[in-house]
């Protein structure tokens, strides 16, 4: 066992670090990026950051050079993400574009389409959103109902998507639709990409519990998409969607605050009734707990990197990291506020430590346990795909979609 990078990896890490030091501000515990999600200044700043990485040769690290990438491996990509996490960079506005849209386009789009869209996306010119979830299709994505009907060289789309992060600023979209309601639910789906400025799209922001609106309802009325923008065969939308979801941010180094370092810093600087919080046994017990979780997740990533460096594919074990991290964030926010005692409920960033990081995280953390595979779905994945336990009895797989029980 050896935690040191190989000479190649070390060289890449040093180069990445040197570049980041020249181009971004280092992160100290408790520090946050200047723009939050929901602030209009964030979008141009995030685009500019992607453009800077593109110019510096750090965009699409694992993607082929002919599409604007760097032509290295996933391992290098993770090394860069790890280093990037030590700097104050914009929240991940581009994670869907780079982590989902680009890999799906590279697998299913025509050569011409790849040339047209992939470099532009890596450069930060085009932001993508993911039009998957619907009112009747969240955890059960294949329950979606948005209709796609063939009309000459086009498809005509009618229906509603929901929870679409960034639809209000996205330039492009990937979308799964139902093209055959009489087929069993996973067999009647078809996948497209399209321009979000097309006629027939109505975007309505949904406010989250924090009050910001980062996700949206997207209504489509007679939206026309050329058949040339179909990805995969008609009726094969489920397989294409799986490709997209498999690529969902594999353990990027980004750790939404507060994480262990932040709560550790808070414990060191907060006075309790008998002295500094860090000296209190109950606080120390929590800190120990969160350290082993943070460290465990980091080391699981090291195992993932090892697997990648051997050319193996990452398995569903990564669900562990997502589960642990999103719940831990909620717990840390909860406990951090408790440490501040009667003043813990103050949200004013001028008064609350670390610009109210804990209070804001308390309102943001619940979303992390629902989006991109809820806690419950991830536990099902671990028990069924890792442990090999028998799956839930399914009542919905074989019947024609339009005959399924829906509760309404």
């Amino acid at each position, binding site marked *: 066992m050896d935690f040191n990078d190989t000479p190649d990896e070390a060289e890449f890490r040093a180069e990445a670090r040197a570049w980041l030091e020249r181009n971004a501000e280092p992160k100290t515990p408790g520090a946050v990026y200047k723009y939050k999600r929901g602030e209009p200044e964030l979008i141009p700043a995030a685009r500019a950051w992607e453009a800077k990485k593109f110019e510096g040769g750090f965009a699409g690290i694992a993607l082929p050079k002919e599409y604007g990438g760097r032509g290295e491996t996933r391992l290098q990509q993770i090394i860069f993400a790890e280093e990037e996490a030590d700097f104050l960079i914009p929240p991940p506005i581009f994670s869907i574009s780079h982590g989902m849209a680009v890999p799906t386009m590279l697998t299913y789009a025509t050569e011409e389409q790849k040339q047209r869209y992939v470099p532009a996306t890596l450069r930060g010119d085009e932001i993508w959103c993911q039009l998957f*979830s619907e009112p*009747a299709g*969240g*955890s*059960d994505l294949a*329950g979606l109902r948005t209709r796609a009907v063939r009309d000459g060289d086009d498809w005509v789309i009618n229906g509603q998507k*929901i929870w679409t992060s960034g639809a209000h600023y996205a330039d492009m979209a990937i979308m799964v639709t139902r093209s055959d309601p009489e087929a069993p639910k996973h067999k009647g789906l078809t996948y497209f990409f399209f321009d979000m400025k097309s006629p027939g799209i109505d975007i309505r922001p*949904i*406010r*989250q*519990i924090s*009050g910001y609106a980062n*996700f949206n309802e997207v209504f489509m009325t007679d939206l026309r998409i050329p058949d040339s923008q179909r990805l995969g065969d008609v009726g094969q939308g489920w397989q294409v969607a799986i490709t997209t979801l498999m690529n969902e941010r594999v353990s990027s180094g980004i750790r939404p605050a507060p994480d262990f370092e932040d709560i550790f810093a808070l414990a060191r600087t*907060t*006075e*309790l*009734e008998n002295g500094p919080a860090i000296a*209190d046994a*109950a*606080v120390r017990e929590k800190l120990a707990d969160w350290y082993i979780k943070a460290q465990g997740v980091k080391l699981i990533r090291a195992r993932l990197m090892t697997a990648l460096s051997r050319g193996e594919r990452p398995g569903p074990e990564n669900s562990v990291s997502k589960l642990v991290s999103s719940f831990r964030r*909620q717990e840390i926010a*909860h406990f951090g*506020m*408790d*440490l*501040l*005692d*009667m*003043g*813990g*409920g*103050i*949200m*004013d960033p001028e*008064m*609350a*430590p670390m610009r109210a990081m804990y*209070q804001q995280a*308390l*309102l943001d953390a*619940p*979303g992390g*346990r*629902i*989006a991109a595979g*809820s*806690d*419950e779905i991830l*536990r*099902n994945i671990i028990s069924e795909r890792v442990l090999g336990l028998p799956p*839930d009895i*399914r*009542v*919905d797989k074989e*019947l024609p979609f339009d005959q*399924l*029980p*829906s*509760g*309404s």
Partner: protein
Amino acid sequence: MNFDFSEEQYLLRDQARKFLDDRSPPAAVRAVLEDEAIAYDQGLWRGMAELGWVGTTVPEEYGGAGLSGEDLCVIAEELGRTLAPTPFSSSVYLATEALLMAGSELQKQQYLPALAAGERIGCMAVSEGVGVANAASMQTLAIDGVIEGTKVPVADGDVADFAVVLAGPGGGGDPSLFLVDLDDHSVSRKPVEMIDPTRSHVEITFDKAGAEPLGEAGQGWTITRAVFDRAAILMAFEQVGGAQACLDMATEYARNRFAFGRAIGSFQAIKHKLADIYIATELARANAYYGAWALATDAPDLPTAAAAARVAASEAYNLAARENIQTHGGMGFTWEFDCHLYYRRAKLLSLALGGERLWKDRLVSHLEARNSGGEV
């Protein structure tokens, strides 16, 4: 053995439930949430005063209903269930209780009738910002009958007429309690953004404000603790009411929301989650009921009962509110659904009289003292 509320108390509960379902529906709570200019629901407050709730435990000689702490607990549970956005806890559990406990005869005559009628509103100002308040850290000072310093956050400080203020004598001595008129020109109040905007909080700055001693000099902490103990029991009922509301919402949603061709409530992950909330809520309820008995009988065990009720209720409500969101999936994460109103309130209540960590510590200290035969 009869560990239950009386028939009259069940009637009171039914009356409270009906009134609050009618007068404090989610729309009324939202009106306070959405509009910064609305500090609390004044119509609701007047209605509660007319029903005599505000003066429940105030003796009849001071214009109250002269009922017991148990009756107030019954009302508190319903207030928690409906998130009633009023200064009830500040004025009733804190200011009124402090006067009942430590006020002179003259002060009682002067303050209690208007408090019991809901015509005047009181609040209590202890905290001085983030961090644990204690004698050593106390910056607010009362010297020669005037107070100087800043208290934050003060719940309902914007709408209160007067505050019960904890202030030190300077030189690290033991603090005392004072009554301060908040309309005094030497008092300034600034709204503070809180995790739960349905309950308004302010920062109060006293710039040599006239202060009238409440209770014995140097007994400020002792009285505050005793007031907080009683308030902890009442607040535990609010928390149990809130936790129950979350459990009801989550159960209802789990029954009706379909995924994979079945109700999500048919998945054991959801079933067990809801069963766990039920268990936590029932444990909290049992501890709160014991607290109600201690409150009504002034039992020597009250501090222990209070700490146990508070710890159990804070845990139950925070769990219920958090997992209610989770059960609702994306819907639970929206402003429009009511899940977050409870999530915010759960957190606020578990901090209001001091955090969970502190109360766990106090609970164990009480138990230690009890087991060694000593007093706390």
